[in-house]
Every structure is written in structure tokens, then in C-alpha cells.
């Protein structure tokens, strides 16, 4: 446990709280980068995802491209873009925005697809326009899954932003690389602990948001999952009863 004491000592060392490479500066860089990447990726992915979810068209293409993008190793994309645009923040922004798009896109259209078709038909039946169906039915009901997509995107961006320090002088990953280079295990480990805490904190924030955005009506009508009940609907049984989650 002595190594961890050293790492903790490094985290608490006042010398690491001054100058351009100070811990708070690095944390802010890391967070700001993650936030900006998510905003740009969302601006691209959410409209497309909503369009796919609303019209039901282009889903096959979206699944194929996002599946393909997910198989690409992040470090490979990062180093490749860095060779093209040069050392600095440009490469991480481009590479990570590309990586953040698939989970957000998937969250956006999967959220729409998970909605009970009856609810959407009912909205049309009471005379809602397409825009109203979209903004008052589909978006609120699909929001939890969209936030889920943002959550996995955020997780991936925070993790890969650590690697981005390989091609740019920025973020908490800097401590890990400089510790590796100088064989300073306390710095490496201290930096790692900070990244892990940041990732877990983000995870907690998104888990909370995900719970909060569930519309109140949905939350109260959700049936308790009955483990004894058959998972497959049987003939004669109302499908509404077997389906716990609207």
C-alpha cells in the first residue's frame, strides 16, 4: 500500500497546484474537452438519430456505420489523425468527435424505437401534428435512452482523452505519460487515480440525469418485473400485461 501512499502524496503535493501544469488546470482541460466533444458530436448525431427514429428509414445504414466505427481502435484513429493535422488539440477533437457519434446516434433512434407504437398512434389520433408528436411524445419518451447513449459516449471520451495526451500537451493523461517517461510511479498512479475518479464522477452524474429525465407518468405506470411470469407472451394473454416497460 506504500505505492498508493506515494500517489496520494503526489495528489496532495502543493507543488502540483501551481503553474500551467497544475492539477486543477488539467482537470478543467479534461472536462472542458469532454464537454465540447460531446456537444459537437450531439449536434451531429441527435438530429440524424431523431430523423431515423421518427421516420424509421435509414436504420440499417446507421447500424452498419456505427458498428463499423466502434470496431476501430481509438488509439489508431487518434494517431492517424494526429499525423494528418499535426501535434496539438486538433487531432483529439476530430478523432473523439467521430468516436462519440455512434453511441449518441444509437441512443437517439433506439429511444424512439422503444416507444410503444400505440402511444404514437394515439397522439396522431387526437390530432397532434408531426412536429407535436416529435416534441411532445417521442423526444420526452425517448430521452432516457438518449441520455444512456450520451453516457457511454462521455465514458469513452473521458477515457480516450487520457490517450490524447500522447499527441497533445493537455489533460490528465499528461501525468500518466510524463510519469511513464521519467519512471515516476507516484505521478503515474496519482494521475491514474484522478482520471478514474473523474470517470466515476461523470458516470454518477449521467446515471442521475438518466433517472431524472424519465417522464413522471412513465415512472409511475411501470409495472414491477414479475420473475415468475413467462417472458414470452402466450396465446390468450393480453400483451399489455406481459410488457412491463412501455
Amino acid at each position, binding site marked *: 500500500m506504500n505505492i498508493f501512499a506515494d500517489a496520494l502524496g503526489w495528489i496532495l503535493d502543493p507543488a502540483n497546484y501551481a503553474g500551467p501544469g497544475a492539477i486543477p488546470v488539467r482537470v478543467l482541460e479534461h472536462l472542458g474537452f469532454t464537454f465540447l466533444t460531446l456537444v459537437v458530436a450531439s449536434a451531429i448525431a441527435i438530429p440524424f438519430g431523431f430523423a431515423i427514429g421518427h421516420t424509421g428509414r435509414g436504420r440499417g445504414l446507421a447500424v452498419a456505420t456505427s458498428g463499423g466505427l466502434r470496431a476501430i481502435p*481509438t488509439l489508431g484513429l487518434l494517431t*492517424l489523425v494526429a499525423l494528418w493535422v499535426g501535434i496539438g488539440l486538433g487531432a483529439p477533437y476530430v478523432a473523439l468527435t467521430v468516436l462519440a457519434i455512434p453511441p449518441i446516434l444509437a441512443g437517439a433512434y433506439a429511444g424512439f424505437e422503444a416507444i410503444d407504437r400505440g402511444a404514437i398512434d394515439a397522439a396522431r389520433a387526437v390530432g397532434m401534428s408531426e412536429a407535436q408528436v416529435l416534441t411532445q411524445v417521442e423526444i420526452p419518451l425517448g430521452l432516457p435512452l438518449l441520455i444512456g447513449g450520451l453516457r457511454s459516449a462521455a*465514458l469513452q471520451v473521458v*477515457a480516450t482523452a487520457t490517450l490524447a495526451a500522447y499527441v497533445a500537451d493537455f489533460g490528465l493523461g499528461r501525468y500518466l505519460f510524463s*510519469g*511513464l517517461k521519467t519512471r515516476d510511479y507516484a505521478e503515474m498512479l496519482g494521475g491514474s487515480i484522478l482520471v478514474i475518479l473523474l470517470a466515476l464522477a461523470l458516470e454518477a452524474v449521467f446515471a442521475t440525469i438518466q433517472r431524472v429525465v424519465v417522464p413522471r407518468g412513465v415512472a409511475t405506470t411501470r409495472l414491477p418485473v414479475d420473475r415468475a411470469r413467462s417472458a414470452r407472451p402466450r396465446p390468450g394473454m393480453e400483451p399489455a400485461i406481459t410488457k412491463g416497460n412501455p
Partner: protein
Amino acid sequence: MTWVWANLDLIWDRTLDHLILSVPPIILSFVIALPLGWLANRFRFSRGAILTASGLLYAIPSFPMFIVLPALVGTTLRSPLNLVIALTIYGVALMVRVVADGLASVDADVQRSAVAIGFSAWTNFWQVELPLSGPVLLAGLRVVAVSTVSLATVGAVIGAQSLGSLFTDGFQRGIQAEIITGIVATVLLALLLDGALVAAGRLALPWTRVRKAVKADARLRLPVEVTP
């Protein structure tokens, strides 16, 4: 392409390194996740604890994980064992939820029938629950395989040899072809392991093929039958 032909030996060596790093975690994560997933599915209290713990473990970024592990379990930073343990942790974290969901998806009537004709909990698990949740487990294992192969490349930044070494080396020496080769090789390796899992699934779950064929057949015939 000239870079590829001139460096086939290097690519082959890194591919072997990559296989050594990524195949054991895929197998280990399945073996370890099986009892954990069963436990998560069986009791209410264990479900919350196990699924929360695996969710948090999965949230830990890989690069810091590679650095923290040696301090926790005493592995050497650059050793393959260190990476194998880290990748196994991610695989287990992903797979536990899949196993729990897969076991929960088994028709309750079938389980009751098994109990009624005298199956013990042990035989019920091996002969009823496990085979019936097979397709779900296979789907989960395929995700684990692809993500493990992709994650193993990150080990290159701490100096562990893998196809990821082509990224770091290509970046430092400014060889674009080397990085692209690394990306293509990683994706191909992931596809290869995925294909191997699908083939293994066909052997282990022969009835899923039959059911699919029947379904496809029914779909083909249906329009003819319903036309008045």
C-alpha cells in the same frame, strides 16, 4: 502497400502478440462471468451489488487501469499478464450483465417443467438454463471479443507489444501506412475472432440454426397462404 510487404514479419509478430493478449481474456471473462451472472440473477441483493460493481469497473478508463493494476496485484507494468488481467476485468464487467439477462430470459414455464420432472438446481442450470440462454450469451461474447481486441491496442502506450505498437511506432516515425495497417489488422482480427465465435455457436447451439431456417421458411410462405 509497399510498407506492408516490407514488414510482413513485423505485422505477423504483432498479430501473434495481440492474440496472446486478447484470446485469454475473452475465454476467462466467459468462465468467470458465468457463476457471477448466475448469482446476480438468482438473488435480489446480489443482483444490485454485482451489477453496480461491474458497471463501475467498466467505467474505469483502460490506460489508468493498466497503471493501477501493478500497484494492486503486483504484476509488472509491461508484462502481458498485466494486460490480460485488465482486459479480463472489462470482459467480466460486460459479460456478467449479459449472463444475468440471458438466464432471466429463459421461459419460466420451461424452468418449472424441469423442476417438475425432477431436475436438481445443478442439472437445471447445465441442461436447461445455460443452453436456452446460449444465443444471448453468444451475442454478449461477440461484443466482448470485438471490444477486447480493440482495447488491447491501448497497451502500446505503456510499452506492451501488440498491434497497437504499430500506432505508436507509426506516429513517432511518421509512417502513415503503419498506422493504417495497424487499424486494418485490428479490425480484421476482431472480425476473425467474431467469426470463430459464430462458428463455435453453430456447433454448440445447433437448434438455433434450425429455428432460424423454419422462421425464414414461414416468412416466405406466409404471403401465399394469406392471399384469399
